[in-house]
């Protein structure tokens, strides 16, 4: 028969109380001194990382087979739509090519560096996702050993995916821009009107994210492309976030808010690129207005 072999030690109630106090202390310590718990997180990451990497290959294999059974009609429709899109894109590309050569000439005239050209990147595979259903975070299989550092920007399909929030030796944690706690400063491409882009769990089904703090006089309208702004302190400027799908005046009539459809499709994300340049921090003197 089963029986409690440690009946001589503390009773369950005392144990629970002690552990509760320990938890509260931990919450307080890790909230107050985030750096102190980083080594602990790193050790745990090293233990689970190799298994996650292996098993995840199996997992994506399974989801691959379920994708295989999506209906043929859906694929045909998609194909037709994509062909149409391709035609219009080809046309647009032609115009852009012309513009581009013109831009090159003008840049030479002004001797401007192409500010947003290509950032150095490093490809990484997503190995696991946040274990609960409330947040959108994932782990990638590259870490500080591969030159990844906290606050580096993560992109895929030509759009912003998120930011590195934690990095171990061989893994890094990324917070997606659709995460409920994500907050990115954005701007409209043409007029550089500043806005704010936030994730929200309530928009989970539409896949959109929130756009707010748009000045009521700003020229942002539906269909505009929003990129990361140059006033953001963690995000490099000029990375595409998405297109505005709706925009309405707020109750205060001082600002507008709406929704953005991100260019990245987060459901099918498997490989991402980490930009290995960090946004340079302003020197302290620059922030001192006295």
């Amino acid at each position, binding site marked *: 028969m*089963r*029986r*409690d*072999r*440690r009946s001589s030690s503390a009773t*369950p109630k005392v*144990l*629970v109380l002690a*552990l*509760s106090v*320990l*938890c*509260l*202390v*931990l*919450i307080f*310590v*890790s*909230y107050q001194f985030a750096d102190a*718990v980083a080594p*602990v*997180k790193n050790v*745990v*990451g090293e*233990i*689970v990382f190799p*298994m*996650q990497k292996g*098993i*995840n290959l*199996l*997992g*994506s294999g*399974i*989801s691959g087979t379920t994708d295989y059974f999506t209906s043929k009609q859906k694929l045909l429709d998609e194909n037709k739509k994509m062909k149409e899109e391709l035609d219009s894109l080809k046309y647009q590309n032609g115009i852009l090519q012309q513009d581009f050569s013109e831009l090159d000439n003008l840049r030479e005239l002004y001797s401007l560096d192409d500010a947003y050209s290509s950032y150095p990147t490093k490809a990484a595979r997503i*190995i*696991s*996702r*946040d*274990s*609960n*259903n*409330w*947040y959108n*975070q994932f*782990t990638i299989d590259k870490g500080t050993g591969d030159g990844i550092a906290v606050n580096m920007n993560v992109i895929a399909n030509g759009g912003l995916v998120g930011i590195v929030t934690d990095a171990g030796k061989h893994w890094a*944690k990324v917070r997606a821009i659709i995460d*409920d*706690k994500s907050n990115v400063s954005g701007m409209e491409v043409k007029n550089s009107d500043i806005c704010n882009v936030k994730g929200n*769990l*309530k928009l*989970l*089904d539409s896949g959109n994210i929130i756009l707010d703090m748009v000045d009521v006089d700003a020229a942002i309208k539906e269909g505009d492309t929003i990129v990361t702004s140059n006033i953001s302190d963690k995000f490099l400027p000029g990375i595409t976030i998405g297109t505005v799908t709706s925009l309405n005046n707020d109750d205060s009539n001082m600002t507008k808010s709406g929704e953005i459809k991100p260019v990245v499709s987060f459901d099918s994300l498997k490989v991402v690129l980490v930009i290995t340049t960090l946004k340079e921090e302003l020197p302290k003197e620059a922030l001192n207005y006295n």
Partner: protein
Amino acid sequence: MKRFIGTALVIYLAFILQTTIFQSLSLADVSPNILLIVTVSFAYIRENRDGIWIGFFSGLLMDAMYGEVLGLYALILMIIGFVISIIPKDYFTDNIFVPMILVGGSDFFYGFSYFVFEFLLRGRTSMIFYFSRIVLPEIVYTVIVSIVLYKLLYILDDRLEGKEV
């Protein structure tokens, strides 16, 4: 000792599976809470305080990898493990319905506490939306998975127990 290592391995495996395969198998963007099933099952099967420790360490693992602060998830799962382990078990533990109800109830408690600590405190007040879109689907999915998983854990626990004596 075997029991200790066996249990630790189960927690480790459950965490790995939850963050990889079950994320690929998510339905309606919701995936089951495997570590909660492990905590509830062991707390229910075993007649000692193992449930408290299993809940505590499962939660701590989750916090360390994905939590903003250490200890929140550990606290929630530990309380679940404690409550399940103190309810009287005069009936047969291989009956599947009681653990199913316990898993459902625990997942509701987990969803509720998580909502309060992580969302309500940040000013996200639309409780009905979060419950109908996240908490309820998670409960349904978790309870369905627990039917299979409980049986497996029950057999496994018998094995670990048998070798121990």
